[in-house]
Each structure stands twice: as C-alpha cells, then as structure tokens.
C-alpha cells in the first residue's frame, strides 16, 4: 500500500527553485522555506557552527522526517523551525511570513498560531487535567472559556481520548500522554505539527500507535515535521531529510531512504 502516491511530494527541482529566490516571499503553498540558514553557538570562546547554511522547502500537506546523528544540528534546526530560536544568518519563511527577523513577542504569537509542538517528554503540565492542558494554547490565543472547552474536547476526541478529558497526566499511560500532547498541538489548527523525538520515551508498540496517529493526521492534510534520530521512525514519513555536520546530506522520498538506510519498511497498515 503506497500512500506516497495519494499526496504529491514536492520535487527536488521545485524545492531548489523556491530556495533560490532569496528575499522574496514564497508562494502560500510552501509552508516552510529556509534559505541559507546558519546558527552559531559561542561555547566558551570557541564558536560552534551548528547549522552552516540549510535550504529546506516543505509544501503544505507534506509529512517530513528530519534525521541525523547527535551533533548533526537537527535539534538546532528544530528550535529554529519551532521559532524557539533565531538564526544568525539566512531566511526562514513560515506560512508566507518571514519569521527570521521577528522579535520575541511576535515569535510567541507565531508559536501559538502556526506551530503545534509534540515533545519527547510530552511536556504536559502535571497538575492540570488533559482538558486544561489542551486548552493552554487557546488561553494564550485569547479564546473565550466556552469556546476553549469545546475545541479542546473536540481535539481530545480526535485522538480517541474523549473519555479521559478530566484525567491528569499521571493517571494516563505514556501513549495517552503523547496523544494529549498531540491534541494540544492541533487544537489551534497550526500550519505545522512539529514533533521532536515523539517516540523517544515510548515502547515499540506505543511508538507504532503514535506513528499511526501521525499517519492519520497526514492523510487528513496536516503538515507534519518529525525530528528523530531513529531511521525506523523516520521511515514512517513520506520524505526524509538527513542532516550531517550542519548541512543537508540527503533529502529523499521514503522508498529511497529505506533502500539507502538498509532498513525494513514500516508496517503502515491500519489496525
């Protein structure tokens, strides 16, 4: 069963064309465009080049994995894409907006409206119920209490947690917690779902469960970007970008990635 055919991927030529047009806003269809993205860190007098000029173009509805060993710069890239950090050089366009030169408060607004985070450690507020956790982004978006409750409940139902809304994180299993986090990420209808090692704290069965949730979301048209160091997990995405030493070393379709990585294709059948 080949899902890749159902949703068209951007072609390498298209991506290169978009990435080359420095200084101009990409077409609305391109959710993420980075041009010559650089990020340096000053580690006690020694400058570390974490990213040395990264060009990425991701079209709406794509399901992309960003792979790379530790130290490859994938965490730095994830922080930049997530608007938690700003680049030293280069452009970053998110949903048609140039976010690389925005200030802190504007970035907070972008995180609130355009990005849904899913973290390895779930990052739920331990003392708040699932419902309240999911409501949080809406609180900062200034949505009224009634509307918040309605939308948060809907989001939890979307991840099959409609019967767990009043449970606190410690009353939920790992998989359920991660699904609460996914509901929270989706509740504000962001442009991208940005997952950082989403299965890092889960066993393999639960990992598969979460991957099926992602697959379902991608099929419904949600742009998903997943950062991982596990090839098996990356292989669930339709496109895999591999980073090495702060540069993109490959950017391929799933099939090509699976072949070159020499791993077994994931079981994408729905259970």
């Amino acid at each position, binding site marked *: 069963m080949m899902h890749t055919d159902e949703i068209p991927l951007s072609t390498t030529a298209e991506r290169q064309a978009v990435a080359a047009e420095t200084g101009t806003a990409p077409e609305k269809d391109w959710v993420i465009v980075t041009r010559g993205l650089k990020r340096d860190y000053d580690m006690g007098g020694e400058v570390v080049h974490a990213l040395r000029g990264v060009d990425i173009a991701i079209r709406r509805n794509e399901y992309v994995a960003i792979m790379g060993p530790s130290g490859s710069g994938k965490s730095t890239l994830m922080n930049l894409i997530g608007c938690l950090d700003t680049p030293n050089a280069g452009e970053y366009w998110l949903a048609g907006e140039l976010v690389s030169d925005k200030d802190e408060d504007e970035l907070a607004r972008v*995180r609130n409206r355009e990005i849904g985070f899913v973290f390895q450690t779930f*990052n739920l*507020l331990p003392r708040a119920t699932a419902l309240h956790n999911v409501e*949080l982004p809406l609180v*900062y978006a200034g949505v009224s209490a009634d509307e918040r409750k309605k939308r948060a409940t809907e989001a939890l139902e979307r991840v099959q947690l409609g019967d767990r809304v009043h449970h606190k994180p410690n009353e939920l299993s790992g998989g359920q917690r991660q699904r609460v986090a996914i509901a929270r990420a989706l509740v504000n209808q962001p442009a991208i779902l940005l997952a950082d090692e989403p299965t890092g704290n889960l066993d393999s069965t639960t990992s598969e469960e979460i991957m099926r949730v992602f697959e379902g979301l991608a099929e419904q048209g949600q742009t998903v970007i997943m950062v991982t160091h596990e090839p098996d997990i990356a292989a669930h995405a339709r496109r895999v970008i591999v980073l090495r030493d702060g540069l993109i070393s490959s950017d391929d379709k799933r099939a090509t990635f699976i072949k070159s990585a020499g791993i077994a294709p994931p079981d994408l059948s729905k259970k």
Partner: protein
Amino acid sequence: MPFVEAVWLALAQIRVQKLKSFFTLLGVCIGVMFLIAVISIVQGMSSYMENEFAAKLLGVNTFTLRRFPWFGDGAGSEEEWRAWLRRPRVYHSDLALVQSVLPPGSRVAVESQDFLQAQTQFARPKQVEGHAVDGDYFTIKKYDINRGRAFTTQESTLGVPVVVIGDEVAKYFFPDLDPIGRPLRIKGTPYTVIGVLEKQGSVFGLSLDRVAIAPYNSPMHHFTNPRGDVDGIMVQTPTSLLLTEAMESVREVMRGRRHLRPGQPDNFFMETSESALAFMDKLKKVMTMAGTAFPAIGLIVGGLVIMNIMLVAVAERTREIGIRKSLGARKRDIMRQFLVEAATLSTLGAIIGILLGITIAKVIEWKTPLPAAIAPWSIVMATLLGTVVGIISGVYPAKRAAALDPIEALRKE
C-alpha cells in the same frame, strides 16, 4: 492570558501548596492583622471621645466659659499652670453680661460642682458629685428625667432645697424605694428629691450617674465653690455657626469687663468639644504612628518572604514556564502570571489578616473598656496594601520568569 484566568491559576497554585502558601502569607497576614486592630482601636477611641465624651460632658454647639481648660492635656509647664491659677475667677455675676450679648435662641446655665458627702437613713454616707446649677442646665446637658421632674424657675430663683439625682445615687441611697419626695442630706442640709435622671452610663469607667443636681441658689453652692465663683458658664447656641459668633461676642465683653488691653492674652478660656478634642487628636496621631510602625515592619518582612518564595517557585516551575512559552505565552503573559500569583497570595494574606484584626479588636472591646470601631476605609486600605505588597515583591521574580529562554527552560528537569 486574561486577568481572571491568571487569578484562577494563582488560586489553584495556592490550593495545591496549602502549607507553603500559608507560611508565605503569614507575614502579610500578621502585619495587616495588627494594622486593622490598631486602627480600629484608635478609631474607636476617637469616635468614642467625639460621641460619648464630648457630647456627654461638653454638649453639642456648646461652650463653657472657664478660668482655664478642664479637659485636654493640661498646662504645658509649671509656669503656665501658675499663670492659670493667678487668673480671675468666673463669677455668677458674669452671667448677666454674657447673656446680654448672646444671639437669640441661645441657652445659658451656670455650673458649680464638687464632691460632697451625702446620706440617708437607708444607706451609709457616701460622696456624690454635687452640681449647683441654674438656667437651661438640663436642656444643654440633654438630661432626661426618668422619674419626677426638673426644678422650676421659681425653685431655682428662690433656692428651694430640691435635688435631681443620678441613677446610681437613687439606687444607693434609696434601695428598693421610690426616692421621689424623700429627703437626701447633702453636707447636713436636707434636700427633697424631685427627680431621677435617666441612666447615663460611664466615660472611661467613670460613672456619670453619681450626680446630685440642686438649684444654684440653694445652699449647695456654698459648698461647691465657697468663694462665690462658679466653675463655668455654659452657653448653647442653636447652630454651630452661631457658636463662633457667640464666642466672639463673649470674648469681647469679658475682655472689656476685665480691662484687657489689645495684645494682652485672654485670662479666661472658652472650652468647646473641639478644644477638648484637640488633645485627643494629638494622642490619636501618636498612637497611630506608634501603632502602625510594627505592622509596617510585618508587611515589609511579609513582602520579602513572598519575593523569596516566588523566586523559589520560578526555579521550581522553570519547565512549566518553558512549556507555556513554547505554546505561545509572551513575556508579559508569564510576567502577569507570576505577578498575579504574588498579588493573590498577598491579598489573601491581607484578607485573613483583616478578619483576625477585626476579631482582635472585638475581643479587646469585649474584655476592656476600650471601644473598637472598624473603619471601612481601613479594610479597603489593608486589602489594597496587601495587593500592592504582593505586586512589589512579585516584580523581580516575575521578571526573572519572563526572561527565561524557552529552550533552556524546556530542557530543565
């Protein structure tokens, strides 16, 4: 994040950490408690002075012409006191002159008083407060006659030995008897009791019901002021505006009568409730200052405790701050969250302090003769004070929280 949201969040936080929150707000609580208690008692004393003391002893729209002030903080020095004693006395003969310059509708009375020995066949001899009075004394003093009557103009003019006695005098000298028509011997002279006053109560524990009031022309004035002088000439005007006017006229004629040259000070005193209360105001200021110094220290310490606890809270909740920031909280949202939390804690402390303070004031009122009046403004002020202390002590921790880098904060265990 809307304000209400932040308050709910703060309350939830307080609920989760009850014991810690309790200790956090203890300082503010104690500070506010003492503040409320002190203000209540000072207020109570002063309204007591104004309503009870001033009205009962001095009367409304009333002044008393005297040799020197009776109520107040006394002479400033030994010399002043001696100068007061060298002043000429006020005599009954001054009454006609004073009366001649008063605005229409005014009332006057002379008063001459001292403690005098009294006795009946029913009780052992005892001192009573003898008052030799005439004019509108009963009206000015607002004395209501419970039983019997006041003396008539005729009795007053003729100096008939009749007496109107206070409640306590009646009960002591005529136990279980109707005193009306019975004789009461004062300094050997028998007076016929014609009236009993309504119970007056007491001022600072001094009973106002130990009086025996007789006409000025009766033999009593020989005992109260043997030199023929009086203790005071009381004047009551219909309005407070006329009071100042009357005082000016009386000052003028008295200075004339005593041949005072311009520039020479008055050698008499016109005592009003204000002049008596001026001293109370001084006392009130000192008490308020002394009484608020201690609570102020409490509030400062309370503020420091809150700041410290909030700094700990920021450190403990770094990850939460990171999560909130990643979900779109701006600096000002985080800032507000912690400010509101500090302010809520502190206001809560203030509210508990107010309740405790009121309780203390009530207990003091109940156990001692000191009255307590809870001033509404002091409650509002204490609440605001609590909020302000919270906000001030929350600023620094809230700024630290708001300035946290989201990536660092999310990484924190």
